[in-house]
């Protein structure tokens, strides 16, 4: 018997997992996604990664990114290292791919903000105020 808190949604259901002849008995989950999470947590725990990637643009020194699908939990720091070796040199927008199939894990690193394009259009319009000017 194993106890687990679901991290799929903010409800944070407390689940119990029992294993019988290789079959998992999951209770306490509020939805199907919880059962899927519990199963994956026992057999192959995976996580998403949200971080930033360095850019060549002084007005937006880092750009937020995430991975397109979850990766094995023990690969998180390997993917972080790969992302830290990268510099974005074109004005990528939300949904654009920074790194394809990172470390061969089948997950792309994708941009989650349009800030680079936004500041570009603002820069043309105005006087190049940095998006990070005010703390």
């Amino acid at each position, binding site marked *: 018997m194993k106890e687990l808190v*679901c991290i799929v949604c*903010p409800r944070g259901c407390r689940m119990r997992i029992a294993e019988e002849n290789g079959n998992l008995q999951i209770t306490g989950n509020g939805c199907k996604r919880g059962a899927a999470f519990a199963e994956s947590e026992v057999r192959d725990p995976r*996580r998403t990664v949200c971080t*930033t990637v360095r850019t060549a643009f002084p007005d937006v020194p*880092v750009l*937020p990114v*995430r991975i397109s699908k979850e990766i094995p939990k023990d690969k998180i720091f390997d993917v972080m290292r790969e992302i830290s070796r990268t510099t974005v040199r074109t004005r990528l927008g939300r949904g654009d791919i920074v790194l394809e199939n990172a470390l061969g894990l089948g997950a792309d690193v994708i941009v989650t903000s349009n800030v680079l394009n936004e500041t570009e259009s603002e820069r043309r319009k105005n006087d190049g105020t940095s998006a*990070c000017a005010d703390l």
Partner: protein
Amino acid sequence: MTASFYDVIVIGGGPAGLAAAISAHDSGARVLLLEREARLGGILKQCIHDGFGLLRFGEKLSGPEYAERYMDELRAREIDVKTLTFVTKIDNTGDGFRVHTVSRGGVAVETARALVLATGCRERTAKQVFIHGTRPAGVFTAGTAQHFTNLLGLQPAKRCVILGSGDIGLIMARRLTLEGAEVLGVYEAKPTPSGLTRNLHQCLYDFDIPLYLSHTVTRVFGADRLEGVEIAEVDETMTPIPGTERRVDCDALILSVGLIPENELAQSLGVRLDPRTKGPACDGDCMTNVDGVFCCGNALHVNDLVDYVSENAAQAGKAAALYRPRERRLIELQPSDDLLYVVPQTLDLQRAGDALTVYFRARKEENGCTLEITADGKTVFSKRYAFLRPPEMEQLTLRPGEWNLSETSVVRFSLRRPEQEAQR
């Protein structure tokens, strides 16, 4: 000085202001949105982690993705937006409001029939939690550390201690760990964690970061840069226990010790604040005691999910757009001591026929209890909960039109526990 007339002015361009402006526009109002920073999106700009939007969009979005969905919606409409614009003063003229602003263009006055205050909240600082010692660099609020890391690309700590187990503190524990910092521990003065359960798991336990309950930071050391902190155990009144002090060497102390709604503008207008939420006391339309002044999002009460903020703000924006001066017949919604608060605080009898969205938090952790609402002593609503935790806000949709309310009615919210159930 220039002046222009709007139906609704929304102050604050974070998630609440964005949703309020869109909703006010869609309800037929001419809308102006004012934001003091260079970019819209508020705190979500720096909340690069995911988990936003599950209720609203059925998707797990990062903060920027969630905010930009609303920013795209805003741009698709004819809504006037002024960024880098700070509100210095508001006059209530009786039939509307004169909003004084300062921006790179100079000073200006904008006029509107109704206001939506979407000014968000601020973090409690080191000075507000009485930490003694020197004043070295390296003591940050979690939001400041997040700003450095996620927007400026700077690492604020190599070896740090986090005080407080609020969600931003937990998120930053993971974030700094991912960026190569050593997080020595999260210390929480209360006997229970303040953040969402899922954040304890995915931010601390996943990375073997220890959580120390009933512990606090009592002192900081260091001249120019922080060199260490003193940790002590605390008793049930959160007072440090003498003899339990120990020193932990670190170069940063990150505080996640609570958020306070920001209501300086509201107070300057004579808006009455609820001491429980520290935000304005509002009716079911999010209108404060001052006619024509609406409040939403974290300025109204600190939310744990942005999805609730958007929902509540859209309601406030619509109500502000439809606002016409009228007599209100308000009755109070009274929380018992089992509850931290109930929002809204009042109900307008003239609007009792409409559905009423109510948010509440339990004062302490409850395992199996029933929320009960009584009107003049008669139970008018009840709902069972398997768990209630103070960090996890609950939402209800009520139909007060069915409760036979009058101006002298007393509406009370309380919790009934199983042992009380057995006595009945």
